[in-house]
């Protein structure tokens, strides 16, 4: 019960004052544990101009357990798995690092920060991370191509 109240509260806060470049709504009217987020690619990053659909699942133990975040839009990024899941497992989203006072707003801010500045040392796609580190131009090019292809 307490969890629902908190989620409602967060949802209210996030809708009155959404983080930059994010639009949030519930995926289904009657399920407050499933959020749909549309995030604009940050300026000055290869993702600019793209619209990324991110789904957030709030576990029933939320906020005691971290939310699970998946990119529904394919994205070429070292920290997002390049498969049909589009999973992201980073920093505060890890089960052992998650702390209940963290909010979805903070999570979205983190995601946007990671989009703007990938963290190749904490990558799930080491190949992409390697390219990001060694051949930044090629990386930017592929990322932009993918934006055009998938994120329009």
């Amino acid at each position, binding site marked *: 019960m307490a969890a629902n109240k908190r989620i409602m*509260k*967060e949802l209210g806060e996030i809708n009155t004052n959404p983080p930059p470049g994010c639009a949030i709504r519930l995926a289904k009217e009657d399920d407050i544990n499933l959020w749909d987020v549309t995030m604009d690619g940050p300026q000055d990053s290869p993702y600019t101009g793209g619209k990324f659909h991110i789904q957030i699942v709030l576990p029933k133990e939320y906020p*005691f357990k971290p939310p699970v975040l998946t990119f529904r839009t394919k994205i070429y990024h070292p920290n997002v798995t390049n498969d049909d899941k589009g999973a992201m497992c980073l920093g505060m989203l890890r089960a052992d690092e998650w702390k209940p*006072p963290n909010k979805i707003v903070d999570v979205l801010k983190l995601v946007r920060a990671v989009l703007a500045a990938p963290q190749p040392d904490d990558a*799930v796609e080491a190949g992409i991370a390697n390219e990001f580190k060694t051949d930044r131009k090629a990386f930017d090019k592929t990322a932009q191509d993918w934006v055009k292809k998938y994120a329009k």
Partner: protein
Amino acid sequence: MADYDEREEELKTLSSIFPELSPDSEDFYCATLEIPVSPAKPLLVRFLPVQGLANLSLDLNGTPTVNAAAYIERDVELAHLPPLTLHMNLPEKYPEEAPPDVRLEAEEDWLPKEKLSELEQQVRSLWDDYGRCQILFSYIDYLRQGAEQGFDLDQSADGCLVLPMSAEQSLLAYDSETKQAVFNETTQDCGICLEPKKGVACYQLPKCGHVFCKSCLQDFYNNAISEGDVANIRCLSPDCGKSGPAVNGKIKRRKANSLHPRDLLAMGVDDQKVRRYVDMKRKKKLEANKNTVYCPRTWCVGPAKSPKYPPIPVDLGTYAMHTSSDDESDEESTAKHNKNPQSPKAAESEAALDSADRLAVCEKCSFAFCRVCFRGWHGQYARCFPRNPNELSAEEKASYDYILANTSPCPTCNSPTQKAMGCNHMKCFNCNAHFCYLCGAWLDGDNPYQHYNKSGTDCYQRLWELEEGDDGQAPEDGRGFAGNRRWEVMAIEAAREAEAQEAAAAAQAEEDARTDGALQAQEREQAQAVQAHVFARMARIELGGNAMAEAPQARQAGNARQRNPFPAQPRAAGAAMAVRNHERQQGGQHLPARPALNNDERRQAELQRFLDMAERDEEEGWDSDEFPDDEDDFRIR
């Protein structure tokens, strides 16, 4: 003049400004007022034992001239001190001709006498300065301001207020009670339920000062303790423990403040839950310590008593837990030990072998035993040798099998790990090492994923395999997770095969012996009988005539190797043997049915083979290693 009394007017005014002013019931012109002392900057107070203070009370400057006598200093910062009581008496000639009579009192006598009289005298000079008018309000204001400054007590030569140790308890209690009272009146925003709550419903962690509401804290910690998630019993604030400044870049990230059971009790977590937490935490530490020995009684298996991990007291609030900083230093020192093979710890455990330190007492059943040979305590002077735990109980066997089949050990600390969900990059719950769940390889924490991106390796592109956990899943391509104590499984498999061959050979030899027709009746005799038998057989060989020359040689060889065919104890009685026996009992899963030979039969057969070889003058080819050895010594950790 008589109908207008300035004294009455002043007291009236004062009582409307300070409603807590209490007029004297007997003398109309007397009143008392309590002046709270809560310095803006907490006052540093040093408590000295009474001997040190003998000099101190004589010293008028308030600077103690304590000589080199040993004493323990305790410096404490107090934000709240007991209030000053101001007694005011307005004489008849006040305010024109006489100053007010004031007397100051401090509860617990915490304010030095000299200071009190200094403050008392101030009223006269104020009265003079202000032109002998109504002065009480100004004086009270002066006192309050002084209190705000801590009466400049920290400006003394010591930089702190020095008090006898006897006052310590009551002053500390007053300080914390007042703090709590102030806190209870505040409104806090709980970061978990995001609701504003009154301070009474909240709990502030004493070490780091973070505040959450009690019901959220209870929910979280109850849940974590039920799940056995000891590592998460720490301050919940995201920025707790992260701000630790790196000194010389040596201190990594500091851990978030771990909680004392006292805190958990104070925030309203059940006594039982807290006890479970303390128990788990202690057990974890015991298990992490390589020097811990366990009771050899199979029905007990409790850890031996150790001064480092005292038993949990009935009153959990008094439990002396290692603080998180202790933990860190512990970890650091063990890390050092690991690097350095000549570690003091190794030396320590060796030293334990020679002295009375071998005595261990089980904390559960109080059994006194030897930590080297695991038998009942034999006194300090008896010689003893390490012994394998003789056999495993059925439960242990089952656990062992399960661990073998369904877990992957951490490459650093060997803790069995099972994956419930997620990728195959694992971080050990016990030692925080990174490793691969599939192959058990240690991974570099800085770049763990490259392990899955080297083409040509076993785990290439397999980061997300078995994402839903491995429970009950069979790998389709046969390359998947198969209980990755891989090397142990392989070693056991190899041992099993070798044994099968050996048994087959033995059976063959036995068969040969039977057809030889000489020894059918004596197959199952005891060792001594068999030895007698050897000589009987030797005699027969001698009688055979053509073996005359070999006989002394054979006898010699037989004597020299006597220890091998007839070991003093049954061999291979270790854990591995127990496991193998257990597997054998489970029946032909791994092997086609074969005659189950017990040790005696095998030994008998082996001996038979040796004798046969001797007869053919081939005994040099006989290898004592063919007897099962207990070198394959597996243990459950």
